[in-house]
Each structure stands twice: as C-alpha cells, then as structure tokens.
C-alpha cells in the first residue's frame, strides 16, 4: 500500500502564475482533505470531500483557489493566480467517513512563489 500519494513534491513558480496539485487517496477512503501548512504552523483545513461532495470548504479562498474530486477518488487543488503568501506546504489526507478520526497524510507539496 503506497499510502496517500501527492504530486508534485516541490513546485517553484513566479507570482501570478497558476499551479495545480494532485492527490490520490488510500484505496477505499471516501473522505479526502486538503490542508495548508505554513512554516511554523499546524495544518489548517482548506476543503473536505465526502465522496464527490465538498462538505466543508469554508476556509478555501474561493477567489483564487479551486478544488475538484471527480469520481470521488483523485483530487486536484488549483491556485490561480498564485501570490507570494501562498508559499506553503499543501497536505492531502484521507480517511473513512465516520471512522475513528485517524487521518492518513501524504508527504505534501511544497510551493514556493517568487
């Protein structure tokens, strides 16, 4: 079992450019999360999916961020246009709906905006 897979691991872009991150959750996990982790901070939720439905996207900056989870499996998080303050690690996690509460995290995608 590979666990939660994220790509790319690292991305460097110039401000105002678009960027996309991809996540493949653990097989059978119906809940998928995107978290943002700034340097020296804990993970903060951006969006949570249950199957294909975004059930909590209250913290997602919708003017520049978008996400989708087609077919309830893989997910993509997009930023367009990126700003300097978006430099952070973007974490994907998955779990079972109504499960024990344990989240399984990917290795993260580190974004640097110049």
């Amino acid at each position, binding site marked *: 079992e590979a*666990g*939660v897979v994220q790509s790319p691991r690292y991305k460097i872009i110039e401000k105002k450019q678009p960027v996309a991150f991809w996540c493949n959750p653990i097989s059978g996990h119906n809940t998928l*999360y995107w978290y943002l982790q700034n340097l*020296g*901070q*804990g*993970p*903060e*939720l951006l969006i*949570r999916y249950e199957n294909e439905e975004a059930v*909590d996207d209250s913290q997602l900056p919708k003017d520049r961020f978008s996400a989708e989870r087609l077919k309830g499996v893989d997910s993509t998080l997009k930023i367009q246009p990126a700003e300097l303050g978006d430099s952070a690690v973007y*974490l994907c*996690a998955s779990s079972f*709906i*109504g*499960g*024990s*509460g*344990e*989240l*399984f*995290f*990917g*290795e*993260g995608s580190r974004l640097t905006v110049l």
Partner: protein
Amino acid sequence: AQRVTQPEKLLSVFKGAPVELKCNYSYSGSPELFWYVQYSRQRLQLLLRHISRESIKGFTADLNKGETSFHLKKPFAQEEDSAMYYCALSSPSGYSTLTFGKGTMLLVSP
C-alpha cells in the same frame, strides 16, 4: 469555535529525562483528542487518540475535561523521539474535521 493551543514551540530535554508536551483545547462539548507526530523527512502520522487509552512508543496522554487539557507524557525520553508533535481535536461524531494546534518541536539530546 474549536481551538487547540500548544504553548511551547520547542521543548529540549536530555535522553532519559521525562517529557510533557502541553495541549489545551477549547470546545463546547466532549471532543475527541489526538496526538499526531512528524519525524524528520516523514509524513504526519497518528501517535495516539484519547478514546483508545493506549500507550504508543511509551507515550501516554490523559484527557482532563476540568482543565480542558490533553498533555502528552513519556517518563524517559529517547533520541528517536525527536520530532514535531501536533495536538488535534474533532467532534465525537467522526464526521467533522480535525483542528490542529501549532505544534511543539521535541529535541532529545544524548
């Protein structure tokens, strides 16, 4: 609103010393509490959860509802315990999102 506070950014101890990583929470009701750990160059992973009342790698944590605390303890620290530790909470339904604290870096010196 639910909130998790970890007052220490860094805790430095010598091998064999006792360790206590502090965690306080704010939540109206009875939350579920967790400790997650991130070792160097590894992904964030669950260390323990309060409902299972288990000891993992010698670590224990007791939920104190009166003090709204969930401190992580280990009687004798090991060098391999050096890592970033995050306290987190969720509602007991299992259908809500984990809210994390800012984390505490534990450094265990030889």
